[in-house]
């Protein structure tokens, strides 16, 4: 070899930056209906192409095409649309509340509403989800009362979590929604463990673990894949690839030239890569994975390709690191818009009905917020008494905590 060139470090960059239009070709989008649907007992290696491709049902004109079309009835689709719209309206309303300082913090899931909604419809009651802070649509789909959610956001006296958790960090065992942790990816091995327990007890319930593209870099994600494969745990592992982890493009998390789904195949797990903004595709893929798990055929890894249309949180402004209008030309479009077009195409929906539903949901959210505020907000100080701070550290309060509460004097 001749005198070798000097080495240089490759640091991945997104194609789009503020003032420079994004080239989304890296998404490698396949035509709707072009991906075959293998039987659920397929050998994981057969899913290698699915893990690199992209399952899509709704084409650009809003028609459902291809083998993955779940053939959903009118009512389920209309419920799906309603849930997605309710999520989006709730998010928008809560951001305003945060700006008015009624909440200290909030995180929206703008643009990703289809994934949680459709997935929840594919699961059964009793299945346990291990969500991140961007899967509030799971709770919306399972119709958890908005008032309870707002009370948690306000940390007021009716907050089920007694004011202890950052807003959006819900915990609702009754709705199969595991308590959200601020630490990333910790819930993945926990989901696998829960699934293993279900298997040990000969139960029929399965688990569904969630993680963002950025957090897949955590060791807990890979540990989860290993344990899921080793014990063939009845679990669905969902990677929501919404392109951005705060200001870090998904390539920095390892998504450049290889899909996150392919990691599953590498770990011996059946894996799918799906258009996350396609309600029907999300539902179909979720059913496939749930059936596989419930038939003792082991875990499935699904990469949901979508776009984080809003900021990371109320403390973030994406226009600083990506083109402000990037969402307008994101190839997979808006999940609500696409499902609406499909419903209209099938004569099951109209613009008038849409506007009426929009107004109805807005009223429902405003009413829930007003009722929650009656129990107090962070501003007016009607938060759970500091005395409750000493409970639930242990099951029974040890004496050193009783003495410390005496010193505090509440």
């Amino acid at each position, binding site marked *: 070899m001749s005198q070798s060139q000097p080495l240089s470090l490759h640091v991945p960059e997104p194609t789009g930056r503020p003032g420079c239009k994004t080239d989304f070709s890296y998404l490698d989008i396949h035509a709707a209906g072009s991906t075959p649907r293998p039987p659920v007992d397929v050998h994981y290696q057969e899913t290698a192409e699915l893990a690199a491709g992209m399952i899509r049902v709704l084409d650009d004109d809003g028609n459902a095409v291809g083998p993955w079309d779940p053939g959903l009835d009118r009512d389920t689709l209309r419920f799906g649309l309603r849930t997605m719209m309710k999520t989006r309206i709730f998010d928008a309303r809560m951001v305003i509340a945060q700006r008015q*300082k009624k909440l200290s913090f909030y995180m929206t899931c703008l643009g990703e509403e289809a994934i949680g909604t459709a997935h929840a419809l594919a699961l059964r009651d009793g299945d346990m989800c291990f969500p991140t802070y961007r899967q509030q649509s799971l709770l919306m789909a399972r119709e958890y009362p908005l008032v309870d959610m707002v009370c948690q956001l306000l940390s007021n006296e009716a907050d089920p979590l007694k004011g202890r958790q950052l807003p959006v960090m819900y915990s609702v065992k009754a709705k199969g929604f595991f308590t959200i942790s601020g630490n990333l990816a910790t819930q993945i091995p926990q989901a696998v463990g829960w699934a293993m327990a279900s298997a040990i007890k000969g139960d029929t319930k399965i688990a569904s673990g969630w993680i963002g593209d950025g957090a897949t870099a955590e060791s807990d994600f890979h540990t989860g894949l290993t344990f899921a494969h080793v014990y063939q745990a009845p679990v669905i592992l969902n990677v929501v690839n919404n392109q951005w982890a705060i200001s870090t493009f998904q390539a920095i998390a390892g998504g450049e030239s290889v899909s996150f789904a392919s990691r599953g195949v590498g770990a011996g797990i059946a894996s799918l890569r799906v258009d996350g903004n396609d309600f029907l595709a999300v539902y179909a893929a979720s059913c496939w994975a749930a059936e596989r798990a419930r038939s003792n055929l082991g875990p499935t890894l699904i990469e949901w390709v979508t776009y984080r249309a809003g900021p990371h949180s109320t403390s*973030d402004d994406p226009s600083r690191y990506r083109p402000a209008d990037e969402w307008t030309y994101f190839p997979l479009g808006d999940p609500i818009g696409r499902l609406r077009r499909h419903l209209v195409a099938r004569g099951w929906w109209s613009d008038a009905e849409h506007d009426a539903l929009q107004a109805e949901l807005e009223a429902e959210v405003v009413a829930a917020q007003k009722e929650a505020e009656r129990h107090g907000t962070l501003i007016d100080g009607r938060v759970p008494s500091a005395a409750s701070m000493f409970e639930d550290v242990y099951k029974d309060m040890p004496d050193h905590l009783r003495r410390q509460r*005496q010193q505090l004097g509440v």
Partner: protein
Amino acid sequence: MGQHVIKMPDLGEGIAEVEVVAWRVQPGDAVVEDQVLADVMTDKATVEIPSPVHGTVVALGGKVGESLAVGAELIRLEVEGAGNAPSTAKAVAPAADEPADLPHGFVPEPARVAEATASVAQTAPAVAPPAPPPSPSRPAPARAPAPAPALRAAGEKPLAAPAVRKRAWDLGIELQYVAGSGPAGRITHADLDAHVAGHRAGRGAASDTRYAELDGEEAIPVIGLRRKIAEKMQLAKRQIPHFTYVEEVDVTELEALRGQLNARYGEERGKLTLLPLLMRAVVLAVRRFPDVNARYDDQANVVTRYQAVHLGIATQTDAGLMVPVVRHAEARDPWSSAAEIARLADAARQGKAARDELSGSTLTITSLGPLGGIVSTPVINHPEVAIVGVNRIVDRPVVKHGGMVARKLMNLSSSFDHRVIDGMVAAEFIQTVRGYLESPATLFVE
């Protein structure tokens, strides 16, 4: 109608300053709840500020591009009902949650004390039989300051009327340690006063302030002359290996002579002190021992001997020690020396001495006058090589001609630079000076 003030919100992560990027409304505009009023920017994000209420814009908190502190008034609206701020245009509403000011004199017990009493000990109520004797485990010793001698059996309650007890509490005094002069050791107001007075004067002393503890401090910067003296003294002590030689001189004859000279010539020539006579003795002695009248430059390793005897006279002034120089002492008779000393001392004390009058000495004489002490270890006036120190005259019995006789004795404590003056030379020089002084006539004979 009331006024509603919207303050610059705290956008989290400890941001202190927020810049106004754009106003969406102008004074006079009507605004609806949730309508965006302004765009503001921190170093991380640009954020829209929605209105929490319906109302009309009265005043904007700042111009575009101006940065406002978090919590400062952003915008003022006129609203139905009371609003949340007094309508005065200028004053910004005080934070509502200021703790209500407690009336003067209400000083809440410091939390520290409450903390200290959190570990609760129940005392038996007076009527029920008092608590059984302390449990067998080691009794906790009392916390009071070093207790004065116990005046009553341990644990026995001091007898005192409620008024006395209340006053003791107010003064923070433990009655346990107050001596009671009343019947059965009852403590009266007078006893309390005595204790307080005694307490203030110190541990159990009488009630005057001779032995009062003093612990004031005052920092004085070492500057000016004081700084120079300190440096010279330090230089001398560090560079010069001092060898101090003390000799006793019988000045009875000298004093007698001085007395006769002053009696005869005192009027027109001025009174002589001992110093001019000593100077004469030194000048004469220097002739035989020139090494002593020299300066030593230890950098260049050169000793310079001088024929002229410029005698430095160490003089105490208000500003500190100064050494005016009697130039050519060899050419002065005692009266001329005396006059020159007086003139120089006066100039030095008034700070009018010229620079050359305070330098150039080849040999220095130092005396504390009546406070001369019996021995001293004078510090050589660097770069000179010797210094003659004069101690006080004292009458003492001396054996002379086989009998005891009272004589006037005076010590000379002199220091020499042992690098250039050997012990023998120093001793012989001082013995020579002593010789002149003990037979004063020789001072006036060449």
